């Protein structure tokens, strides 16, 4: 789809609203062809960052480049490179979905292509509503139309600001397929989302932002490995107190119920090598004469990691 190698670069970008720093000296690079997830709580600065890069916000300090071009000085070039799906649902009460796509092409200097519009309407399951006024579309349809509009000029960079907010599970998974397909075609995608599962499923790299500051940028797997805890939940034949496992070098032992304990451990920590950790825990239980009747294991979710990072920041402050 895209034929321009595009990347995004923030250099010391700050944006203030009165005394509030929505972005505070942000330095960030998004590599060409990757899916980059920007995670943060409400008011962290995610939408502001996308607004600055896409041209919706112009009075910021610092410099932002898209595809090597300055977003303010070379705005005609950078905005052709960028497709934007904003967070807030929007529609044009004067036009139907088909006409909205027709005009959207024109905004970007692209000659409207009826065949492409038909194909996009079918791809996003909007064909049946193609001639319906956009005001009358459901929330999910409006969201799909917004994605369609953002893609009408074949952008090299796609900003998705909470793209699946308020859409059902089926549609969310359809959109994920589309996003992965675009990435495979070489489109660089920047995603903000409150559905952390979404970032976990889609992102190549994750940036954590809070209070306008980028706390961490890492490949998803690396972030999970470095900060992700593993846990094992053991069911015993008799009731067991958590204190029995006090001498185990685990991060946390939690009493789930009388006979069930949840033990959290750091795979790179002092207890054991990751692949031996569960064996060590079971050996420890046996050495105390305990009989394990069931076992469940897993690792912490991105949500847990995210909360941990914010907690660390809070603790350090």
């Amino acid at each position, binding site marked *: 789809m895209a034929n321009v190698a595009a990347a995004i670069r923030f250099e010391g970008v700050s944006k203030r609203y009165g005394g509030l720093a929505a972005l505070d000296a942000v330095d960030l690079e998004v590599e060409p062809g990757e899916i980059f997830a920007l995670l943060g709580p409400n008011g962290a600065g995610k939408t502001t960052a996308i607004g600055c890069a*896409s*041209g*919706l*916000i*112009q*009075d910021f300090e610092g410099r932002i480049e898209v595809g090597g071009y300055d977003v303010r000085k070379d*705005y*005609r*070039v950078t*905005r*052709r490179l*960028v497709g*934007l799906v*904003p967070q*807030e*649902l*929007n*529609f*044009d*009460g*004067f036009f139907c979905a088909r006409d909205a796509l027709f005009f*959207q092409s024109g*905004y*970007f*200097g692209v000659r409207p292509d009826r065949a492409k519009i038909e194909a996009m309407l079918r791809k996003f399951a909007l064909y049946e509503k193609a001639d319906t006024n956009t*005001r009358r579309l459901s929330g999910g349809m409006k969201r799909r139309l917004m994605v369609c*509009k953002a893609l009408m000029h074949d952008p090299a960079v796609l900003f998705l600001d909470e793209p699946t907010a308020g859409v059902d599970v089926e549609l969310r998974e359809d959109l994920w397929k589309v996003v992965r397909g675009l990435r495979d075609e070489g489109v660089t995608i920047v995603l903000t989302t409150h559905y952390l599962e979404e970032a976990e499923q889609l992102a190549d790299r994750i940036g954590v932002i809070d209070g306008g500051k980028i706390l961490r940028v890492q490949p998803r797997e690396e972030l999970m490995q470095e900060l992700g805890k593993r846990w094992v939940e053991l069911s015993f034949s008799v009731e067991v107190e958590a204190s029995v496992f006090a001498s185990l070098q685990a991060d946390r032992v939690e009493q789930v119920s009388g006979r069930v304990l949840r033990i959290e451990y750091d795979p790179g920590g002092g207890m054991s090598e990751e692949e031996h950790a569960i064996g060590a825990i079971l050996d420890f239980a046996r050495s105390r004469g305990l009989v394990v009747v069931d076992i469940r294991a897993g690792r912490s979710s991105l949500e847990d990691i995210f909360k941990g990072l914010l907690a660390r920041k809070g603790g350090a402050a």
Partner: protein
Amino acid sequence: MIILGQSVVSPVITTLLYFLVFGFSLGSRLDEMGGISYMDFLTPGLMMMSLINNSFINSSFSFFLTKVHGSVVDVLASPLSNLQIMAAYTAASLVRGMLTSVIIWGIAAGFGANTLHDPLLTVCFMVLVSCAFSLFGLATAVVSKEFEHVNLVPNFVVVPFTFLGGVFYSISLLPGAWQTVALFNPFLYMVNGIRLGMTGVGDVSIGSCFLVSGVFLAVSFAAAWYLLRSGKNLRS
């Protein structure tokens, strides 16, 4: 069709009512105004009133509704320059304003009005005024935060000042002091500009009409450009 009904048919019907009330009911009791028949006198005034209203409303409400519906981001995130955005909204308003005015002229001709004194001058003047009010409407839409803000201008500026600007009467009928006051109303020059073009009759010179309308165009252009460039209420 819905858009055509709201944009063109509705203002034409409104103006038709003015013709019926002022042109026929009251106009039949007036022999002439300014040396021409009252129907000929009234027609340019009603056309200018419609032109101003429709030019203003088209750009202001079109743009303001995109703010309300959120679709303004489609334009703001596009490579269009501020001047291109201004040109697009002005062109759309010009089409609507001219179309309604021409329909009104056709209706007036049906009622017997004879207003073809200088068509070229008339069209030039109409384009000038329509562009000015299109840009004024766009500037108003950029700064407006509520529907009431957009409505303020047509309700409290355009309608009263065009009514007082000689749409229905010549200011020569006013007492001396009020004639002087009327000269400070810029809408007077717009109404008289089109009337001079269509009938050759007016209360002021055609030069002053172009001058006042040109200044209004320049101010509206500067305001729209500055507000779009500043991003106030748009890009912040």
